[in-house]
């Protein structure tokens, strides 16, 4: 599935504020594995997801998806196999385009785009059906601009768009962090439902430790550009927040601090 080997990424290389955001990070995901990712601010979580998605080139290391070396591929080319949802709800949809146009754009992910109609009549049925499952009433608003939607509605739509064409890998970077707790819960439920139903290999970054522990089959912790914990199987199922903090201080010889980590 996904295989990242020895990824190194330095920002402002050679400059005064050089940051080594990823320091020799390797991570492999099995087919259908749901991995939660935690770590303090600036630990390198987003940078890792960016490296996998091809937002920027890496300094060292190789990235494979289904045994295809995509290290040299640009972002748009990797998108054929990768679905993404961002933290900022405004980033995931086109505000000026209608809901159905946004979905139509997502339906063409990884395929060449030509001069055929952007939104096809037969696709509308699919869109309606899929939107109805969100339970937000969006199925009756196909022609409303996405810019009119609330943050939660947009994030739900982004989630749907990311999986409308089944991706090999789903990348979620704190995609519920900008939402109020209730809406965040709804979007998270939707996420779990879609991931399970489609059996998606998923990397989900979160600051909520409970969430990280409660979801998925595996938990990875980033710290200062490295993966310091990788917990799975039986151990992951029985994991509690205290265990996690304990494991962290064992490994690092320091207390876990994050101004945004939610411990409760």
């Amino acid at each position, binding site marked *: 599935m996904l295989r990242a080997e020895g990824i190194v990424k330095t920002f402002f290389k050679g400059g005064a504020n050089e940051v080594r955001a990823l320091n020799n990070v390797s991570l492999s995901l099995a087919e259908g594995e749901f991995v939660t990712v935690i770590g303090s601010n600036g630990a390198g979580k987003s940078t890792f997801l960016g490296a996998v*998605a091809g937002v920027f080139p890496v300094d060292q290391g190789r990235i494979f998806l289904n045994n295809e070396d995509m290290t040299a591929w*640009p*972002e*748009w*080319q990797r*998108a*054929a196999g*990768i679905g*993404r949802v*961002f933290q900022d709800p*405004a*980033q*995931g*949809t*086109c*505000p*000026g*385009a209608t809901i159905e*146009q946004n979905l*139509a*754009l*997502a339906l*063409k*992910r*990884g*395929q060449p*785009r*030509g*001069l*055929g*109609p*952007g*939104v096809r009549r037969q696709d509308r049925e699919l869109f309606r059906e899929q939107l109805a499952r969100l339970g937000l009433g969006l199925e009756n608003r196909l022609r409303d601009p996405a810019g009119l939607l609330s943050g939660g509605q947009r994030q739900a739509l982004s989630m749907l*768009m990311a999986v409308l064409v089944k991706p090999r890998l789903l990348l979620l970077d704190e995609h519920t962090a900008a939402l109020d707790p209730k809406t965040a819960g709804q979007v998270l439920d939707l996420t779990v439902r879609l991931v399970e139903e489609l059996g998606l290999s998923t990397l989900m970054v979160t600051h909520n430790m409970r969430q990280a522990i409660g979801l998925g089959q595996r938990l990875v912790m980033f710290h200062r550009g490295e993966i310091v914990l990788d917990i799975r199987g039986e151990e992951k199922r029985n994991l509690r927040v205290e265990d996690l903090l304990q494991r962290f201080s064992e490994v690092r010889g320091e207390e876990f601090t994050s101004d945004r980590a939610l411990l409760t």
Partner: protein
Amino acid sequence: MTSYAFFGSLEQGFAFGLMVLGVYLTFRVLDFPDLTVDGSLPLGAAVSAVAIDAGVHPALSLVWACGAGFLAGAVTGFLNTRLRILHLLASILTMIALYSVNLRIMGRPNLTLLGKPTLVDLFTTASGLPQYLATPLLFALVTVFAAGVLIWFLRTELGLALLATGDNPRMIRALGVNTGNTVILGLGLSNALTAMSGALVAQNQGGADVNMGVGTIVAGLASVILGETVFGRRSVARAVLAAILGSLLYRLAIGLALGLKLGSFSITPSDLNLITALLVVLALTAPRMKAKVFS
């Protein structure tokens, strides 16, 4: 305003309307401030004039002009997306370079079409209408047709990708679109329309002039903003039509301004760029001023 001047303004409004469609495409759809148009308008004029001079059918010369304009826009897109030059600067570089190119194409600063058949002549003869009516009608047909094609295109798969490139490039890259390519395509189309506009203007005024493009972007912006202020831009189709109507309004306003006399002072065509620039400044700042006053 005499009815003669009125039809004159309409004919200008439609001829430059193609350019305004191009400016709408870059400025509004792609969010790319493209000054290439100041060079691609005379480029289209030059190519069309030289082609007609060489015996090419005036209608076919439009196709040549479009092709040249597309290339000019694509160069700006290439400079910006592949060589990573700031969009504004990239377009200025192409615009300046086009000045030399246009002189090369014509071999001199201007080329007259006196005695050569133009589309205007052909259409006037064929329609049997007097020329002051035939010309605006011809240009209206061409421009409305182009607008129809543009609206159709912006609803295709590729067109939607182009809209999304301007609206949210990060998202559309994540959906597998090479935004470098869509920017190049958009700039190419925009400048193809602009060059076609230049070709119509040249055929209408009986020749091409290397300086005829000065101020094109400002006139284009003024028309786009005028149009959307009056007609809105709630949908793509509406915004496209608003661009054409904006072009008509703008040329009518200019026609009126040119007739204006304040004592011994009167506005001459050479004042137009200043007036238009002021108009654009006003239009761009008015929404913010309004917000300030009412907050």
